[in-house]
């Protein structure tokens, strides 16, 4: 299936969308703009409103206020079954009494598509998800990964304006999860279909999306490319939810500097307002901590408490008095000489750090 066979890629726009459940604000004036063919991931802890946002787009939930546009057309009042949006659910959404083929053609039958066209489309979709040999199986005869691939094929069969993915991988095993997320991304890129992907797993969001929107308490804290989000988080919440972050106790010094362990480091412009002597947490990524010579006056000594081999990289947890374990992430070759209980010296290598109130 080539890009041309699908309808034109659509835009998706949410304008000040709110949703209240009783007194709880599940969504609080959410603005979101998805460009044609883009894959945007909504990332956040459970209860942050990401799924509510997705369901409002699908028409399965209605907004308390705000507007939804697809290709500049207002969609607020369009019933779910008239929206032409393909959705993949977390799990168990295949019709149990229908075969794989019947599941995939369900949307086409609802649209009264000609039988021969329908059969063609099903064949195309089965090829797309590499399940040609399972056409006549029932859902219960498939593995979890295969079921989700059928669910994707079923959602794509109707050539939807927008593809909606609601934690499609979270019920799968670690190994399968990585494989299917790559397949999803690959298919999405091939078809050039505008996609909204909801997940609580930051690694998944970063690995798959063009842009990631980090949500917290019904609001979008930051939306950006994965690299920008990771290297330049705008809030402490984003910094600690996206990637890993050490929180090291520190004290504000004069001239926009902060005393952390044996180092004085610049804080970013926007954080320099904290008064001198204020106790703060400095947020530092594991890879921004490097091994240092014991003689370096800026280095800190600690003991290796945890050593986690992660393939090319190894993560060390270092015990230093007065702070939680400090994590650093270095190449597995370099770290070989250190064992648990060994003394180790390190320093923070960033020129500027982010701080948060304790």
């Amino acid at each position, binding site marked *: 299936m080539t890009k041309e066979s699908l309808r034109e890629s659509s835009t998706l726009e949410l304008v000040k969308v709110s949703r209240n459940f009783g007194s709880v604000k599940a969504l609080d004036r959410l603005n979101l703009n998805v460009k044609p063919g883009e894959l945007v991931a909504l990332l956040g802890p459970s209860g942050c409103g990401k799924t509510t946002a997705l369901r409002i787009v699908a028409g399965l939930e209605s907004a308390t206020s705000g507007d939804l546009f697809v290709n500049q057309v207002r969609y607020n009042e369009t019933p779910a079954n008239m929206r032409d949006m393909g*959705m993949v659910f977390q799990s168990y959404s295949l019709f149990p*009494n229908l075969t794989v083929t019947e599941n995939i053609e369900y949307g086409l039958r609802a649209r009264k598509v000609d039988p021969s066209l329908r059969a063609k489309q099903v064949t195309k979709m089965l090829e797309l998800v590499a399940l040609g040999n399972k056409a006549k199986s029932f859902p219960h005869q498939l*593995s979890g990964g295969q079921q989700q691939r059928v669910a994707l094929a079923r959602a794509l069969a*109707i050539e939807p304006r927008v593809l909606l993915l609601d934690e499609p991988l979270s019920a799968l095993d670690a190994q399968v999860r990585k494989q299917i997320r790559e397949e999803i991304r690959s298919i999405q890129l091939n078809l050039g279909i505008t996609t909204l992907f909801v997940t609580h797993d930051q690694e998944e969001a970063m690995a798959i999306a063009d842009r990631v929107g980090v949500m917290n308490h019904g609001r979008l804290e930051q939306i950006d490319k994965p690299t920008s989000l990771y290297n330049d988080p705008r809030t402490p919440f984003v910094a600690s939810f996206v990637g890993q972050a050490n929180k090291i106790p520190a004290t504000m010094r004069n001239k926009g500097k902060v005393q952390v362990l044996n180092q004085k480091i610049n804080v970013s412009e926007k954080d320099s307002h904290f008064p001198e002597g204020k106790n703060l947490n400095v947020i530092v990524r594991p890879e921004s901590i490097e091994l240092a010579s014991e003689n370096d006056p800026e280095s800190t000594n600690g003991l290796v408490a945890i050593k986690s081999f992660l393939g090319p990289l190894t993560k060390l947890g270092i015990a230093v008095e007065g702070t939680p374990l400090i994590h650093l992430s270095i190449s597995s070759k370099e770290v070989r000489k250190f064992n648990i209980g060994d003394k180790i010296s390190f320093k923070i290598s960033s020129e500027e750090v982010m701080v948060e109130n304790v």
Partner: protein
Amino acid sequence: MIQKSSKFILISASVIVSTLLFVIPLVAASIYSFKGNQGKGYSFANYLWLMHQDGFFQSLVTTLKLAILAGALNLILMVPTMVFLNLKGAKFKPLVDFLCILPLIIPVVSLAIGAQVSMPSILQNTEYELVFFYVVISLPFTFRALDNALQAVSLNTLVEASRNLGATWFRTIVKVIVPSIKSGIFSAMFLTFALSIGEYTITSLLHWDTFSTWTVVAGQQNILGAIAISIFSFVGAIALLTIIALFSNKSKKLIEVKE
């Protein structure tokens, strides 16, 4: 290890005892039912006698007619109700659950007396008033059977998937909901059917003639014939159950998920 085997013995014993509660009466009764006149030899004589009694076919026909009506009425009432409760009406569910369990708790005798007072006299004059009672006494089972079937499938997700794919509500009900809870619908129908056939208290208090009241009357004349009736009913019950089991096994397979 000693504890383990003593527990095993204790438990096996109770399994055996509860099995015997049924097996002995049944085997004894079926042997009796084939006994010849004056207790000599074995034959189908008692079953033949049964069929030639006055009112056998007539009461059987009445019973079947009422049972079928009760089964149908029950489904028409409860399938949409239960689907609604599971989809959107979660907050009403405890109330309906409560109402549906009442017939189990209220003594049937009181139910009959209470209802006689309040029931419109148009209904009271026909045997169809029994259909109303049969539906009521089946409610506890219908509720449970349909609810179990609905909870075994992820109804909300299935309905949302169907809507998302462009299906109307009508298509969703016909193609997704009903096939998914087929086993529950069958169980509910057969249970209503079986309960209606077996109902005696209300039928007899309201002085109607059905197979169950006929059974009692006929049984008083001939003890071996009465036993034959009971075996006849029992075999019918087993047949019904087998059908239910077949349907519910088949659909259980459909929702089992491999990981």
